[in-house]
């Protein structure tokens, strides 16, 4: 299947359109809420919640006997919320630390969920096939109604976010201040956490329990590198999430035998990698370049200062000296000398250098004021 044909299919084929739309919306909403999770240092909460949702799915199936995804996701939501609040209880009431609490709830709930799933599988009359799609996600099973459901939840999320934007933002950056202003921080906290749980639960069908946490983190972590403003970060994270969803679906739809979840996660990870390396202000590449540039400037200044030290001892500051005496000085390279000539600080004649007036001026002010000729 070539690229153009795929694009055509996205618009004409019902299944492909549904899946693409579904994963895009999912990516957007998890990216949005994930920004809060990342900034609140609750990155791994998503991992714990998504695992903790599994027994809810199994119990909902055991009770109702249907495979209707809305019912199962309601079960997942309840058990995810129980997991979240239990984690909180462990952290606040005992001396166990947050990492232990997360790991505990994650593994214990998941193990219990697997117990129930295998128990269901052994039941003779259960139409159980398809429950394990919640492990790794099968976007192919998305129906139009599921997409509507996602869109509705995303809409509600968006409204709540806009309504309580100020409160969320303030709680995020200065919880104590928010409290002193008389806001009910506990309620705001519960509200945002519940929405994070909701977003995770929505993604279970598409991405699966195991990899859902990456959906939450990766777009947000990528977006964080490009901006320092919360609004822009949330917006960017939503875009990154949606793009990961669309590309991930495209790749997994054109290959046999690939679950959507892992592919979307890989694509999202690529976004993160690119952002880590190429972001202009925080990225590793530009950081390295800045580092090297600073070191060069420093060396240049060192050479200039050294020359100044020599020139100072002569009456005529432009008295020529041989290049050789610079050699035992660390900051000196041919490059820096050329640069100094280029800046008109130094003139070169054969093997001799001499400081110009301008160079002398600059060197004497080297430690007095900032160089603003850059």
């Amino acid at each position: 299947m070539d690229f153009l044909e795929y694009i055509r299919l996205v618009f004409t084929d019902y299944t492909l359109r549904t899946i693409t739309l579904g994963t895009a919306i999912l990516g957007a909403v998890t990216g949005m809420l994930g920004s809060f999770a990342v900034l609140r240092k609750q990155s791994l909460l998503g991992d714990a919640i998504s695992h903790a949702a599994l027994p809810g799915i199994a119990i909902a199936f055991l009770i109702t006997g249907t495979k209707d995804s809305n019912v199962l996701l309601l079960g997942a939501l309840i058990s995810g919320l129980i997991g979240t609040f239990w984690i909180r209880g462990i952290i606040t009431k005992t001396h166990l630390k947050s990492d232990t609490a997360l790991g505990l709830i994650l593994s214990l709930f998941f193990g219990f969920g697997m117990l129930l799933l295998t128990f269901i599988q052994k039941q003779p009359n259960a139409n159980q096939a398809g429950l394990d799609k919640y492990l790794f996600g099968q976007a192919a099973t998305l129906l139009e109604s599921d997409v509507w459901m996602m869109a509705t939840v995303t809409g509600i999320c968006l409204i709540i976010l806009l309504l309580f934007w100020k409160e969320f933002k303030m709680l995020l950056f200065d919880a104590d201040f928010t409290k002193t202003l008389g806001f009910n921080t506990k309620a705001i906290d519960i509200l945002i956490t519940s929405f994070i749980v909701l977003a995770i639960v929505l993604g279970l069908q598409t991405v699966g329990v195991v990899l859902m946490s990456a959906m939450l983190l990766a777009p947000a972590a990528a977006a964080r590198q490009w901006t320092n403003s919360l609004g822009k970060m949330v917006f960017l994270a939503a875009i990154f999430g949606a793009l990961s969803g669309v590309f991930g679906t495209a790749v997994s739809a054109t290959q046999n035998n690939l679950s959507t979840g892992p592919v979307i996660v890989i694509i999202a990870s690529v976004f993160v990698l690119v952002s880590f390396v190429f972001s202009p202000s925080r990225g590793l590449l530009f950081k390295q370049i800045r580092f090297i540039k600073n070191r060069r400037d420093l060396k240049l200044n060192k050479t200039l200062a050294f020359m100044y030290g020599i020139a100072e001892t002569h009456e005529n500051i432009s008295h020529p000296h041989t290049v050789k005496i610079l050699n035992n000085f660390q900051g000196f390279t041919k490059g820096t000398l050329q640069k100094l000539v280029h800046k008109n600080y130094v003139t070169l004649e054969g093997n001799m250098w001499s400081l110009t007036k301008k160079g002398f001026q600059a060197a004497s002010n080297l430690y007095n004021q900032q160089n603003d000729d850059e």
Partner: protein
Amino acid sequence: MMSSAQIEIQLIASLAAIACAIPGTFLVLRKMAMISDAISHSILPGIVIGFFITHDLNSPLLILLAAATGIITVILVEYIQKTGLVKEDTAIGLVFPALFSIGVILIAKNANDVHLDVDAVLLGELAFAPFDRFIISDIDLGPKSLWVIGSILIVTIGLLFAFFKELKVSTFDAGLAASLGFSPAIMHYGLMSIASVTTVGAFDAVGAILVVALMIAPAATAYLLTNNLKRMLLYAIGFGVFCAISGYWVAHWLDASIAGSITTMLGIIFLLVYLFAPNKGIIAVLYREKQQRTEVSLLTFLLHLKNHNEEEERHVNHLNEHINWQKVRSKTVLELALKNNMIVVDNNIVSLTEKGNDFTSQAIDYIITNEDAEIEHMKDDFFLFRG
């Protein structure tokens, strides 16, 4: 009667529980529990690649390869964290899903060559472990997994005894350990290597998630019961083995996943200890908080009495409305004060006794200086009501 396969399964599960509990205890104490979760997921590509090469899930080479992936995860997480671009927990959350996804995709793309089932990786196939025998020149030496997990356990125990002191110091006081000449980095990576190898060795039998549960849950449960490292290790091992065996029988009874039911047993034990542990359990904590509230109320009450010499300020009815407590609470506080001879009630007028007066001045001293030493000796002086 138990069949020999049943005994072997329980033996493998118990050995895995012990092998996990030992590094798990240190991970919990070092606040690195989530690293074990990350390792258990990210070893998947290592296992798949190892499987391409060896075609045997129990081969030592595969275990080493997979354990190396675990170490790579740790290094990667630390590298990302060091760049300062994201926080540590985000770094963990980014690295392991990516590696796990690569593993899943590798399996999916080579489904014909790899007889590896992702469900099996997550869950393990403990029930089938006894069928993969270790046979040398026609002599049956027992299940392979038993040998694998047994050797890992022996190495772990050997290292634990050899480096117990170093581990202990570096866990509780990394600075002291470094100044005594134990490199914290060696300790850290040593522990991570053991955790990786154990995870890989145990995953075949019990699955990736149960490994995490076996590492964290027994240690966390033990931590709620004791602060002594040696006891914590012993308790953790005890809980692990108990849950391994009881979990097996639950699975037998329900005809469900053994790994799942062992985890469920671990969960039940943790829940019980979480609720009922003396001192650190939820009920004990809530009770203590309630008691502390009463103590604070009593102090407030006594301070009020000390500040007011006027009789009308010290009338029972007035006190009731002035401090604005509910009836039950005021009554508790009043009785407590009476019982401790802090006050006398005469004609509905409450006044401080000499002892109460003394106590209150000391309490004010404590509040002003806020030194712990003062309140400790106060408790002795006045036979306060705690304990």
